């Protein structure tokens, strides 16, 4: 297992796995979009506007999943000091940022015709907005610190501290009175959603997950190469000084 954590071996594996992740992602997203937009029935209460759910909900799940993955990678980096853990955390941040932005924008668009407002400072929306700022802060901190080891450790601490926001997002609809509806799928009893809507929703969620894996592999390969470039340049500078 640890053999695959070698950056050179991981790079080759990721290069081989990328086309598979891309194919699976595009297939699932295409199928999920077709079912969600054209074949699933309109909702009894909300009508056609409910079709935004097929992109909004998976994006919101992935926004939280990516932050969780980033926090776990960061924690692993701090404990085992493995460079690939920091690479994974750094590569995940921009992807999570985009998922969070999609969740916020599509939620806002869904909110206008159903609630009569683009935005409300309720607990769910505000905590997701804070998640967006956490991603931005994490990326900004990486870019602000020049020395890579110090940047990795400092951002890892920020990622771990920010993880406290994840349960707040998840349980905000239970802890406070919000405009946002409570969980329909991830609940103790059976999902409160019909199979004709559940199937496209799950296909889109799996498609978003495969999309994340695809981009993660791309970005991690890019970051591994960036480290090699930095190493070569440093060696040249040191050779020039001696």
């Amino acid at each position, binding site marked *: 297992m640890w053999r695959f954590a070698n950056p050179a071996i991981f790079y080759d594996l990721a290069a081989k796995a990328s086309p598979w992740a891309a194919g699976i992602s595009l297939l699932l997203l295409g199928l999920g979009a077709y079912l969600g937009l054209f074949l699933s029935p309109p909702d009894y209460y909300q009508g056609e506007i409910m079709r935004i759910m097929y992109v*909004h909900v998976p994006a919101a799940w992935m926004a939280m999943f990516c932050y969780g993955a980033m926090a776990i990678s960061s924690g692993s980096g701090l404990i085992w000091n493995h460079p690939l853990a920091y690479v994974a955390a750094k590569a995940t941040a921009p992807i999570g940022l985009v998922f969070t932005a999609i969740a916020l924008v599509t939620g806002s668009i869904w909110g206008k015709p159903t609630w009569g407002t683009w935005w409300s400072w309720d607990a769910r929306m505000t905590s997701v907005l804070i998640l967006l700022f956490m991603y931005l802060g994490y990326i900004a901190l990486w870019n602000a610190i020049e020395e890579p080891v110090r940047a990795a450790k400092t951002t890892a601490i920020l990622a771990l501290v920010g993880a406290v926001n994840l349960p707040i997002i998840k349980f905000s609809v239970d802890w406070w009175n919000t405009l946002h509806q409570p969980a329909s799928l991830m609940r103790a009893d059976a999902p409160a959603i019909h199979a004709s809507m559940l199937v496209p929703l799950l296909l889109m969620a799996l498609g978003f997950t495969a999309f994340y894996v695809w*981009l993660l592999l791309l970005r991690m390969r890019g970051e591994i190469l960036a480290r090699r470039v930095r190493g070569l340049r440093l060696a*040249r500078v040191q050779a020039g000084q001696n």
Partner: protein
Amino acid sequence: MTEYFLMGSHTAYIWAAWGIAGVLMLAIWSASAALLRRQAALLEALEAAGQTVTPKS
């Protein structure tokens, strides 16, 4: 066919949400692919210039 794309009074909201999501996903994919391409080109250029330096003993 048109009826599938016209979803009542909410057509604009639905297509705007899906469209924005698509554009953002395309943008992050494009940026990620560009990052990989840029670093690969940089590394190739450095290696071609013979800058794989062995440290002096």
